[in-house]
């Protein structure tokens, strides 16, 4: 019974993510087809990659005709941040979860799924994680297919406007938490300041966007942990 309620609770928690993914993946589908890829391939990319920035960048490179190594490196660097999230999750997953189950949970580590899982109280069970992941997977791949199929029918002004969806969703995740914790506000501000510095300071121009995120995250969370250690659960 606990498994079933955990799964359903996960489904509920995943629903807002799934809905938020639709406009973002829709934009991805538009972009892929506009770049000359078939709709089914855009769908396969979303289903197998299940990531935003990494697959946007990788797909752009495919469209540009880049080599395998460049595609692999760029995607990898953008996605290294998942290691931090995955490591953070190891501390929260229920003890005794089998390797096979852990590997399935790992597939669903995205910025949003990870963050929502992190906000849960207590240990995270396998049924909960599966429930949490399944909606966003459907939203992400389904939205992609939708965007890919009706790409030609949509005015450019509307598809351009959808570019903001992903970021608006990030804001919706952070801000309610930041309201409650001064530590969170300071950490977010540090991370943002470092990203801006790396992006606009000429000396750091050669640092890729993936590494920017990693450096900003490690510094922000590192300073935060030093200034505001969390004493207990």
């Amino acid at each position, binding site marked *: 019974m606990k498994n079933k309620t955990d799964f359903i609770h996960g489904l509920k928690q995943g629903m807002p993510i799934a809905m938020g993914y639709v406009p973002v993946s829709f934009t991805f589908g538009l972009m892929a087809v506009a770049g000359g890829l078939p709709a089914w391939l855009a769908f396969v990319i979303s289903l197998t990659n299940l990531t935003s920035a990494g697959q946007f960048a990788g797909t752009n490179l495919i469209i540009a005709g880049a080599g395998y190594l460049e595609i692999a490196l760029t995607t990898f660097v953008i996605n290294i*941040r998942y290691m931090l999230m995955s490591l*953070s999750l*190891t501390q929260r997953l229920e003890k005794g979860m089998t390797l096979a189950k852990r590997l399935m949970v*790992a597939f669903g580590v995205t*910025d949003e799924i990870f963050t929502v899982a992190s906000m849960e109280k207590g240990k995270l069970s396998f049924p909960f994680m599966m429930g949490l992941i399944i909606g966003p997977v459907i939203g992400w791949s389904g939205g992609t297919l939708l965007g890919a199929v009706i790409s030609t029918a949509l005015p450019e002004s509307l598809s*351009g406007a959808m570019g903001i969806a992903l970021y608006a969703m*990030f804001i919706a995740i952070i801000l309610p938490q930041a309201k409650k914790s001064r530590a969170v506000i300071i950490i977010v501000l540090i*991370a943002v300041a470092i990203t801006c510095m790396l992006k606009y300071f000429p000396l750091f121009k050669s640092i890729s966007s993936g590494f920017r995120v990693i450096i900003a995250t490690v510094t922000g969370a590192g300073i935060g942990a030093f200034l505001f250690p969390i004493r207990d659960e």
Partner: protein
Amino acid sequence: MTLDKALIAVLIMALVTYIPRSLPIAIFRREIKSLYIKSFLKYVPYAVLGALTFPDIFSSTGNLISAICGTLVALWLAYREKSLVIVASCAIITVYITGLII
């Protein structure tokens, strides 16, 4: 790029995306005792999302003014703790309408 090559590239992308996700979860099972590392890992999600959002949100729509308007609406609704879907769709609508006006 031919379709065959594109498909191989997609599979490579899937692989290099899955590796960083799965390695720590598959290998690391101990409970971390250090207060510092525990706090660090708890703060990671906020730092990641902050770094991903700003300043990139301002170039997400192809027009700085419409992006700023969308951002302000998203900030305001998120501050009032509206759901992810509401915040995302209102930001899109705001950007779209601002784009029509300017």
